[in-house]
């Protein structure tokens, strides 16, 4: 195991009194120690967990609202401590910011050290090579300088950096890539964070629902929802338009059980104009295959049904005719929506309720859909009248605000509920006109996004991987070779040389002994392993 803390020069703290500078140093040194990094990593993993347990506003604000409604005592406290926005919360940010500071504090001195190590020579060979962890000897048939040259070449071939401090020894090092890779890994993690930040500051996303036959023009006001980084000017979005010609969907019909009705394919056929004045192009958007227009990526993220509804007044004049999107509530596409007819007289009319692509006919459990495709579509609506827009405040297009609305009663006084199949119409009581269900179109939910940081993030992520592989798999070794003329008695056949090889590894390196004995075998005859790092005694 290695000593992982880079050596630091300011090792003594003056015990009696730490001035402000001393304290700053003390804090800094602790913050940038491996132990702290380890602790912060464990803390980060713990801090990330609540975000997977509690609903998060950034993912699904509706579920957060439901949770708060269901847990009126604990909910607000959790909210106060940021449990519904974990990854923006002060405590989560604190952990990762400390980690980043620690990381930078780690990288800088290590980079300096490594830079010097890269340019310095391997150290002088120690006097007693056999005291190194791993050592072997061999007899070279030739004079010492030839032996040394042979050793040098053998080491160079194995990509060692080789240097001789004197006439009788060679020092060699290999595996700087290990530390280089490790530094690359840690630096690249910082760059990933920078890339994420760039995306948050300079990126934007807008979501929009487009029904078949409709055209969407990318202007800020046309998006249903729009989220943007602080550095983005929403008045200069790429000016493309996209028309949804047709949406193809396919659901599982053959396999039963939980898979029955699971989605199998969504394909949006569109006609896109990248910039005003350019020729329209037919383009396909599917899940996993976004479309890029004017630098923005357009993803097909949702789909559903827009029943086409016509409302007439008592005289038969059309006062509302529109494909109105209803939002799916479950996997079987039971969908909710609202039809708002402000021009109805004498009072404004509102319809709210469900669209069921394949209605369960009895309604024993209320309106339910039993299959997501259009096998037996039906609308189930309640009817309201009064003021649709109390106070003129903005409201959801999918629900009615019933604060100033009253249900329209049936003849017997109970609230009116109507069920319509395509082609059917219903005459509202009391000369309020009629409503007809003309047919169903599909809609596509497009999400338009830009993230100028994603290229940087990707490059950095790949660099992390490269660095990690080098850092973990490259071995750092130091090898010393010393030569001396063999003892007199052995010089039967000309001059021979005694070669001693010693080696050190930075971390546990079980292959070192084999490496050294191979080198010994390559350099001379009767090689003998004097000491192996993993086992010192010999048999």
């Amino acid at each position, binding site marked *: 195991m290695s000593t992982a803390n880079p050596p630091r020069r300011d090792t003594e703290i003056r015990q009696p009194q730490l001035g402000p500078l001393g304290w700053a140093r003390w804090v800094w040194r602790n913050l940038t120690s*491996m132990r702290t*990094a*380890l602790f912060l990593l*464990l803390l980060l*993993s713990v801090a*990330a967990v609540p*975000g*997977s347990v509690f*609903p*998060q506003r*950034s*993912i699904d604000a509706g579920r957060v609202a439901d949770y708060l409604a269901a847990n009126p005592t604990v909910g607000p406290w959790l909210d106060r401590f940021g449990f519904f926005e*974990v*990854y923006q919360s002060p405590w989560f940010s604190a952990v990762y910011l400390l980690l980043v500071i620690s990381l930078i504090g780690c990288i800088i001195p290590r980079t300096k050290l490594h830079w010097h190590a890269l340019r310095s020579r391997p150290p002088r060979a120690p006097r007693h090579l056999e005291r190194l962890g791993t050592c*072997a000897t061999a007899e070279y048939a030739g004079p010492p300088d030839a032996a040394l040259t042979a050793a040098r070449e053998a080491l160079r071939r194995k990509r*060692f950096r080789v240097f001789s401090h004197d006439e009788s020894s060679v020092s060699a090092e290999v*595996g700087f890539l290990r530390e280089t890779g490790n530094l690359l890994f840690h630096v690249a993690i910082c760059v990933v964070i920078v890339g994420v930040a760039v995306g948050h500051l300079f990126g934007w*996303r807008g979501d929009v629902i487009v029904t078949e036959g409709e055209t969407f023009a990318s202007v800020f006001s046309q998006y249903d929802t729009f989220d943007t980084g602080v550095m983005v000017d929403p008045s200069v979005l790429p000016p493309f338009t996209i028309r949804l010609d047709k949406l193809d969907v396919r659901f*599982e019909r053959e*396999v039963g059980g*939980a*898979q029955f009705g699971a989605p*199998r394919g*969504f394909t949006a056929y569109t006609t896109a104009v990248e910039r005003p004045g350019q020729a329209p192009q037919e383009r396909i958007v599917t*899940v*996993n295959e976004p479309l890029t227009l004017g630098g923005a990526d357009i*993803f097909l*993220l949702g789909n559903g049904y827009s029943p086409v509804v016509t409302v007439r007044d008592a005289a038969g004049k059309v006062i509302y005719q529109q494909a109105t999107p209803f939002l799916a509530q479950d996997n079987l596409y039971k969908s909710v929506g609202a039809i708002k007819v402000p021009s109805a007289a004498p009072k404004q009319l509102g319809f709210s309720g469900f669209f069921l692509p394949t209605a369960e006919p009895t309604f024993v459990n209320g309106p339910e859909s039993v299959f997501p495709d259009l096998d037996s579509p039906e609308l189930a609506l309640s009817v309201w009248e009064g003021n649709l827009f109390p106070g003129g405040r903005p409201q959801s297009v999918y629900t009615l605000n019933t604060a100033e609305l009253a249900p329209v009663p049936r003849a017997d006084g109970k609230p009116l509920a109507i069920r319509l199949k395509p082609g059917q119409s219903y005459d509202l009581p009391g000369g309020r006109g009629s409503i007809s269900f003309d047919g169903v179109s599909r809609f596509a939910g497009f*999400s338009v*996004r830009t993230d100028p940081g994603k290229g940087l*993030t*990707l490059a950095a*992520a*790949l660099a992390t*991987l490269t660095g*990690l592989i*080098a850092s*973990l*798999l*490259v071995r750092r070794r130091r090898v010393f070779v010393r030569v001396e003329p063999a003892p007199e008695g052995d010089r039967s056949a000309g001059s021979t040389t005694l070669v001693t090889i010693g080696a050190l590894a930075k*971390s546990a390196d*079980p*292959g070192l*002994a*084999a*490496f050294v*004995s*191979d*080198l010994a*075998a*390559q350099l001379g*005859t009767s*090689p*003998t*392993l004097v000491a*192996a790092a*993993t*086992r010192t005694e*010999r*048999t």
Partner: protein
Amino acid sequence: MPLLVTASATPELANWSNLALYSAMAVYTIAMLLFAAHLAALGPDTEADAAAARAGADDLGDDLADDRADERADALVGAVAGSGAAGRTGGIGSGDGAAGPVRSTLPAADGPRVGSSAADEGSRGSLRARKLGSTGMSMTWLASVLLLASVVLRGLSVARAPWGNMFEFATAGATVAAFAYLLLARRYRWEWLGIFVVGPILLTLGTALLAFYTEAAELMPALKSVWLVIHVTVAILAVGLFIVAFGLGVAYLLKVRRDAAEVGTRSRRLAFLDSLPSATRLERSAYGLNMVGFILWTFTLVAGAIWAQKAWGSYWTWDPKEVWTFVVWVVYAAYMHARATAGWEPRKAMWIAIAAFATVIVNFAIVNVFFVGQHSYSGL
């Protein structure tokens, strides 16, 4: 990939696949019993025997065998890196004519490579223990081939990579763990590890059948991507390695505890631990596997983010599955740090590795089923 989009399931093949799975489980059960008997036979009968086993020639055999194991581990790691790590491979491959006679004079380093298999087999208990162990291995091979057949048949029946829901991930992951173990066991003589690996595999398969079973069917649209193959394959490989490393880690922790205990107070039932490789070697092997697993998991994380960018338009949304993939990664990173930190005992570091493995289990068995997110592919 039009093939993926239009093909629908072939139920007969799926039935054959299930049959192969049941058979595999039956054979694994036999293998597990054999491995249990093997361990029981490994444990020396008396403390005196235990002492004898630890001393003398047996120990040498152990060390030689493990030296060889470590070398092989290096070669393995070098191959993964794709860049012969600092001359290691050169060293192994340099067997030219002159080396032959030379080697015999290098007992410590070269002896094992020349091959003293008799010596290392001698170190692994009685003849009976050896027979039980090797029959257990054969059964494990048989079961694993059946399991592989089950996965392949499932793939054929749905005409796609057979890892699109939890049942399929679980069986594929178990298959990887089984073959990783079998190949490693062949090199390192890890019969004793069998129960630590086959046990979890059986547990995984049983859970997959009882809790996660999903009819063979086409994928949902978000999963129809080459990234399914890339991301999930690597994730499954990583988990397979983590499982084997976990088995080694548990064996290591048991062994350290036993080594620290007074000889007289040691449990007879765990006597087999005395015949295992030394604690240091167990720790090192676990580290090696965790390390390769960690690299693969890093890749999984990156590939998952790339896929999320393609499928959902954002490479990171803190979806519960993403959160836990990240948590797994961070805890394994903490383990790597702990192991590299001077002054941290390897034993403590190993506990972090065990915790990291627990997060792998949570990520699979709990997050997929109980947490609401975009990763709704459990098929349940």
